[in-house]
Each structure stands twice: as structure tokens, then as C-alpha cells.
């Protein structure tokens, strides 16, 4: 418009001083084109609606198909609409969706594209910006932004079918040969009363039926109350491999969750990582629970979780000690164990928990950590890769 201003001033002078009708007609024409373009752009953009259709949760290496529907709800056609959708680098290899097209009266346009879930995480699709302008370029193109939507990609899950973990819980789902703890809910059979048998074990119905004192025999079993303590504090990891190590830690936690779900064990999660959903360190743990819903909750958190800074490892273990019930198996996953953490884990052991240390990545002082762990009688396993995580599971057996 600024390019036309001298000419408009000339026309105004002509119009006023010479009362020149032709000048005024041209004047109206230019100003009319400008005003119409301005109004058209703004009005048309206000009535553009964009919808993004996709599955907002995906597993690693899946392909997510996204359909972007751009609809013109106005009776004004849009000559050109430039759309620019920002996409996460990890899902699209840096290729954003950019296109220019026309939209007729109440017409819609669809853009389909695929995202490959290369990496677990909590990703934003968008924001999407659209812009349009008049055909003569007299008006500055109008622009409008649409908010982004979220896509959660679950972490990798490694099959830990043979994983064996100790437990102190007397009643549970895992059958044990050790008859110290018998589960009164698992009736194995009956036998004749012997001297020294507890009266509580007498099966009075059977006694009445047989006419002789009969006692119940129970199976011995344990329950595995599993809680994963995922340490995502930066200092706990070797800085050279922090990214891979933390990802492996998350993979290990997710794999344990899947294993626990398959075995119908209760499983909880404590972490000091950062949840990008809230932008804060995860303060509330996921309490131990069972079932698919609980498993999905754990996976959701593990999908989002990132390296945290604020909550220390020691504080995390202290919280675990305070929260967890006696006999819970505590799997501490980290990139390294400090002296303080060893002490805290030892205290946890004394408090009746079963701490197990799982070091991932490339710990700086692995041999030293093993020595200290054996000194504290704490089982310690190390996995430098996903493959090692699988074999480690076999070794644990």
C-alpha cells in the first residue's frame, strides 16, 4: 500500500482542487482494492478451521498417520492459503509440512503425512500457522496460528520373561519350595492331626465328616511387590553417554513394568525425572498396582519422563523407604550409585525392603560399585545395552 501512497495523494489533490471525477473513480478503485483485500484476508482467516486426526499414543517404531483437515467455513473463497506445520525433529527428520493451496467456498483440504516413532517421548504436533493474502499483494499477508496437539510414544519394552527377583512377602502369587511361609489361601490338602499341630489348622468340617481330627495343609508362596526406583538425576549418569543411558534406564523400567503386568505382580514407580506435561519434577509416585490400566499409567509417565535436576537420588530413596511396605522389592535403576545411595539402600534393606540395583549404560566405577554392593549384601546388575538387559534377565534367573 505504501508504494501507492504518492499516487493516492496526487489523486486526492486532483479530486479536491479540480473536482476531477475520473481521478476519484481511480482513487476509489485503489483504496477499494486495498480495503477489500484487508477485509477479505482477515475475515477469511477467521473462518478457517484446522483439525488434526491421529492416534495420540504409539509404540516405538510405529508409523503414526496424521490427517490434517483444513476447512473454510466462510462464504469467501481463499485464493491462496499457505500452511506450515511444525513437527518434531525426532519424528519427521526435520521435514515440516508446508503447502500452498486454494480453498473454495465452504471447501476443505486434506493433508496426509506420516510420522515414524523413532524415539519415545511426549511430542508436540504443531503449532500450525496459516497465512493468506490478496492477489495484488497490496495488503500484508494475514497470519493465524493454531495450537499444537500432543503425541505420546511409549518407551521400548524388552521381554524379561525369565526375570527372577527375590521377595520377603510371605503371601503372594509366586509359589516357593521353602515352606517357612505358608499361604492360608492356597489349600494343598489335609492330613491327620499330629501332636504339635496348631488348633487353628484343624479342619472342623472334615473332622466331623471323618470322625477323626484332620488338619489343613497349605502351599508355601511369596508375593512380589515390585517398585521401580528410576533415578534420572543428571549427576547419576556418565555425562558421555547420558542420553543413551537414561533411555536405557527408561526401557528397563518399562520392561519391568511389562514383566510385572504379565506376572500379575503389583508394581509401582518412583522417579525424580522431569515430567514435561507439568514441567515439574515428578513428586507423586505411582503407587503399586496391578492390571492393564495401571500398566498404561506407568508407561505414560515413562514415555514422558526426562532428566530431572531438582530432586536428589538420596531424597528419592528416602521417600521410597517411607512409602513402601515391608517386603517390597525395590529395583533401583540408575547410571551409578553414590556412597550415600548405598547407605540409603542398605537402610532400606534393614527396614525390610529388598533393594536390587540395576546399573544401566556405562557406569564410571562399575567394579567399585560391585565391591561396595557385595559388602552391603545388595544384589547389583549392570546392563550396557538393550541386549545386555535381555541377557541380564537370564542371568538373574
Amino acid at each position, binding site marked *: *500500500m505504501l508504494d501507492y501512497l504518492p*499516487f493516492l495523494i496526487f489523486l486526492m489533490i486532483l479530486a479536491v482542487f479540480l*473536482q476531477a471525477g475520473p481521478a476519484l*473513480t*481511480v482513487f476509489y478503485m485503489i483504496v477499494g482494492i486495498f480495503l477489500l483485500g484487508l477485509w477479505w484476508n482477515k475475515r477469511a482467516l477467521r473462518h478457517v478451521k484446522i483439525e488434526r486426526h491421529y492416534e495420540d499414543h504409539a509404540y516405538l517404531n510405529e508409523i503414526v498417520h496424521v490427517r490434517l483437515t483444513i476447512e473454510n467455513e466462510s462464504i469467501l473463497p481463499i485464493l491462496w492459503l499457505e500452511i506450515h506445520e511444525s513437527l518434531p525433529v525426532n519424528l519427521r527428520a526435520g521435514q515440516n509440512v508446508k503447502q*500452498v493451496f486454494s480453498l473454495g467456498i465452504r471447501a476443505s483440504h486434506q493433508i*496426509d503425512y506420516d510420522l515414524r516413532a523413532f524415539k519415545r517421548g511426549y511430542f508436540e504436533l504443531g503449532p500450525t500457522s496459516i497465512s493468506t493474502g490478496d492477489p495484488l*499483494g497490496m495488503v500484508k499477508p494475514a497470519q493465524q496460528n493454531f495450537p499444537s496437539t500432543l503425541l505420546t510414544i511409549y518407551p521400548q519394552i524388552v521381554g524379561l520373561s525369565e526375570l527372577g527377583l527375590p521377595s520377603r512377602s510371605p503371601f503372594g502369587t509366586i509359589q516357593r519350595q521353602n515352606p517357612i511361609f505358608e499361604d492360608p489361601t492356597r489349600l494343598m490338602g489335609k492330613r491327620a492331626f499330629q501332636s504339635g499341630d496348631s488348633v487353628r489348622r484343624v479342619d472342623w468340617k472334615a473332622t466331623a465328616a471323618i470322625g477323626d481330627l484332620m488338619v489343613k495343609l497349605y502351599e508355601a508362596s511369596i508375593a512380589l511387590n515390585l517398585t521401580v526406583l528410576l533415578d534420572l538425576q543428571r549427576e547419576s549418569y556418565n555425562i558421555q553417554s547420558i542420553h543413551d543411558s537414561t533411555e536405557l534406564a527408561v526401557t528397563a523400567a518399562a520392561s519391568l513394568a511389562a514383566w510385572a503386568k504379565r506376572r500379575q505382580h503389583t508394581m509401582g514407580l518412583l522417579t525424580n525425572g522431569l515430567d514435561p506435561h507439568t514441567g515439574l519434577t515428578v513428586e507423586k509416585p505411582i503407587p503399586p498396582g496391578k492390571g492393564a490400566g495401571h500398566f498404561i499409567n506407568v508407561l505414560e509417565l515413562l514415555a514422558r519422563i526426562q532428566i530431572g535436576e531438582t530432586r536428589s537420588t538420596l531424597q528419592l530413596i528416602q521417600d521410597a523407604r517411607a512409602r513402601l511396605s515391608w517386603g517390597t522389592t525395590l529395583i533401583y535403576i540408575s547410571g551409578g550409585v553414590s556412597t550415600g545411595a548405598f547407605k540409603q539402600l542398605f537402610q532400606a534393606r534393614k527396614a525390610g525392603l529388598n533393594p536390587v540395583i540395576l546399573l544401566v549404560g556405562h557406569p564410571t566405577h562399575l567394579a567399585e560399585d560391585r565391591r561396595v554392593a557385595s559388602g552391603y549384601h545388595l544384589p547389583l546388575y549392570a546392563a550396557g545395552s538393550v541386549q545386555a538387559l535381555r541377557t541380564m534377565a537370564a542371568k538373574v534367573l
Partner: protein
Amino acid sequence: MTENPVPQPPADNRQPLSLLNDLLISGMLTCLAFILAKLLPALYPAWTVRGLPLMAFLVSLEGLIAHRSRAGRPKVIETPFLSTAAEWVLILILTKLAIMLQGGLAGIWQEILSWQQGFFRHFFEIQYGLVIFILFLIWGITRLYIEPINQLEEDKNLMAQEKLGYAFIDRQQARRSLIGLIFTIGSSMIGLTVLLNGEIEFMPLTETPTRNFVSVLLIYFVLAFIFMALNQYAIMKARWFFNDIEVNADLSKRWLRFTLVFISIVIVVSVFLPTGFAIGFYPILSAILQGLIFIVGVLQFIVMAPIAFLLTLFSSLLSTEESVEQIRPVMPEFNPDTTEAVATLPLWDVVKSVLFWLVFIGVIVFAVLYYIRNRRGLKDFFRFDRLRAWLRDFWAWIKRGAKQLGAFTAETAQKGIQGVRLILTERRVKLPSLADLVKGISPRQAVILTYLDWVRWNKENGLSRRESQTPAEYAAAIRTRWPEVEAPLKAFTNAFIQARYTRQAIEKPQVDAAQNLLKDLKALIRQAEANPDNLKNQAST
């Protein structure tokens, strides 16, 4: 659309777009030639040449096509001067032939014969010279279009090089050059139109109706806007290509269609908008101001009428009939100066004038605001920050002052009320003193009154006199309580008994003595009350 493909260089549709651009430029220059053709008879009354616009169209088109054909050839074999000279020889001959044909076959023969009497004088006669001048002007203007047009038109190879950073073309600058050219020619055309249609003394009026000129101008600007729209499309397409943005294939056709619809809407509106004004700006402004003054007057009348009515009532009570006449409010009359001027005009002209000025001023205000908004420096300058800050400070000062004034007024009023209340209270409490009271009565009554005051005073201090008590008994009771007052009390009681129960004459000195005794009694008792230990000691002793 499926996966986002890598954008390909723009489709090579240069030929049709180039042809369209050539036709548009030639069309615009034809419009210019039309107006020039109308100007020439005014300057040269013997002008007989027809078809100048057509000639201009052909010359312009030839110039563009010739340039494009030369641009396609290698520069090694290109000789611009010779090519241009050949081009002009052809134009000169064809133009002469066209002019000669307008005179018929006889005219051609006569013209050829006249060459024998002086070739240059008869070949390059005035009309032919003028036509050649106009055509040369058109041809020259055409050449001015060529360079920016070349920069804006799509060139697949060049754009690919630009994308790689090997070349750079400032398309916006090229567009600005074109806009400048278009509007300079357009301004000239409007100026010429005004000149031809105006009542200028030395310029004979043209017989061509104004609407023809308006039509030509509209055609010129419609073609110019289409031309600009195509160039804008070329710029946008290049930008999208450089940014790897995929463009729908049918966008170019839609662009052209949309531009035509867009411009048509504007033309329809522009044609129907008022282009003339029967009433000038100042009369309109004056009428509007008078209208505003009238509204203010009416409001003033509505406000003042009840007050005036009340004043009238007061005045009638005072029987001042003259003042009643003076304070009667008068309803204002709306009588703008333009009434007479407007009355002679049709209503539609008045409406058109008002509409014209409204549109005109609105557009100017909008253009100025838009210009300021797009100039950061000016925008900052006109942000009225200082003025706004000053106004804010001023308002705060006013508020603070008003608050202080309110507080001061409230305090003063409170003080005043308290003062009035105090005065009233004091008036109520401050009864006439005993000394004042006794001045107006007889000495006997004065002594009795003094004693009564003593009884009242004792009552206030907790020692009431019972009705059964005689003055002596009452004195004994007081003495029991305050033994130190025995002597004056006895004298005082005796004075009262003398005045109340005897017929002895009571004189003024006795009244004074009684009052002095009363003062002494009160002073002693106050002293005793202030020092109770002394009192106890005295009592014990």
C-alpha cells in the same frame, strides 16, 4: 496429498504468461495513446489521423516481442543497434503506409507525387511527425517495462540457480519499479483527462464525452491491476519455491480468475460511489458544526428550563416582571449557512456531497493511520506516550488535589460541627454564675441563693442534704466529714439562718461576705479532697 514431496521447480508456463503480460502492457499503452490522440486535435486543429491507439498497440507489442526474440539469441551474434534500427525503419514505413491508406488510393498517389517536390518535407509532414513522436514515446515506455518484467517472469533455470545461491534477483524492487511506472503513466493520463475536460481558456474543449475518458482510465487500471496480480503471483511462486513449499498445480488459473472477480467487485463499487460534490468541504463542515451547536443548545435548554422556571417563580414572588422576561430560556434554532445553497440543489446532490466528503475524509484518515502504523519511527512518535503520561500525571494530580480538598473540607466541616456542638454544649452547661445571679435580686434572697448553691455543690460532691436536716444539722454533718471547714461553715450557716429565718436587715456587704465564705469553703474542701492524708491526720487529731 499424501507424503510431503520435494517441491519441483515451477512448471514452465512462461510462454502463455509472457504473452499475457505483453498483451496487458500493450493494452495499457493503448489507453495512453487514446488520451494522447484526443490531446493532439486540441493542440493541432488540422489533425486528421485515425487509429493511433491501434498503432500504439501494435508498436508496443512489436517492441516486446522483438525484445524477447533477441533475448533468446546468443549475445555473440546479437547486434542491438542494427536490430533496433531495422525495427524502427519498419515502424516508420508501416506507419506512413497506414496514414496514407487513411486518405484512400488517390491520397496515396498524391502523396507519392508530392515526394518529388521535396522528399523529407513531404514525407515527414507534421501529422506524420506527431504520430511518430507518439509511437516513439509508446515504444520507449514499452522498453522501460521489459527489464522488470524479465526479472519477475518465471525462469526455471534461473530460479534453480537462485535457490543454490548462485544468483539473486530483487523481485520486490522490480515490482516497485513496475508500480512506479504504471502509476506515473496513470497519473499522466488522469492529468491529461482533467486538462481535456476542464474549462481552460487556451485549450479548446474536446468533444469526447467524459465517460469515454473514465472508461479508458478504468480499462487502463483494470489491465494494470491484472498485470500486477500476475507479477505478485510470480513473486509468491518464487518465494514458495525457495522455501520448499509445495504449490497446488491449478493455483495460477485460480489466481487469474480470483483477480478478475476481485477487481470486478471493486469496479462496481467504485463506479457507484459519488465522484462529484455540489457542496464544498467548508460549507459541509460548517453545517456539521452548526448541527452540533444546535444539539448542544437543545441539551442546554433541557437542563436550563427547570432552573429558569424556578427562577421565574421566585421572581414572581418578588413581583419583578422584568426579570421574568429576562430569564426565560429560548429554544435554539438550527439555521446553517448552507441552507440557502442546499435549497437550490437536488437532494441527491446534497447526499452525494456529504457521502463524498465522508468517504474522502475516512479514506485519508485510514491511509494516514495505516502509513503511521507501518512506520515504526512514526508509530513510536505518535504513540502519545508523553502526552498520555502527562495526562495520567495530571489526572493523578487532580485526583490527589480533590482528595486533599475533600479531606480538608471534611476536616473543616467536622471542626465546624464540633465547634458548633461545643458552643451549644457550653451554652447548655454554662449556666449563669452565682455572682451574676445575685446581682439582680435582694441581698436576703442573694444570701439564700448562695446557701442553695452550697447545698447543690455538696450534693454534687456526695453529701446531699436531707429534707429533715436543719441548717445546723447539715453543717454538723459537713463538719464531720471535713472538720477543717468548721469556722467558715459556722459563719456561713449563721448568715443563711439570719437571712432565712430572721427579720434582720440583710445588706450587700453580708452578701459579699457569704459569697466569700462559700468560696473559702469550696477551696478548703477541694484542698482536703486533694490531700486525704492530711484529712485523716486532721480527723484523727
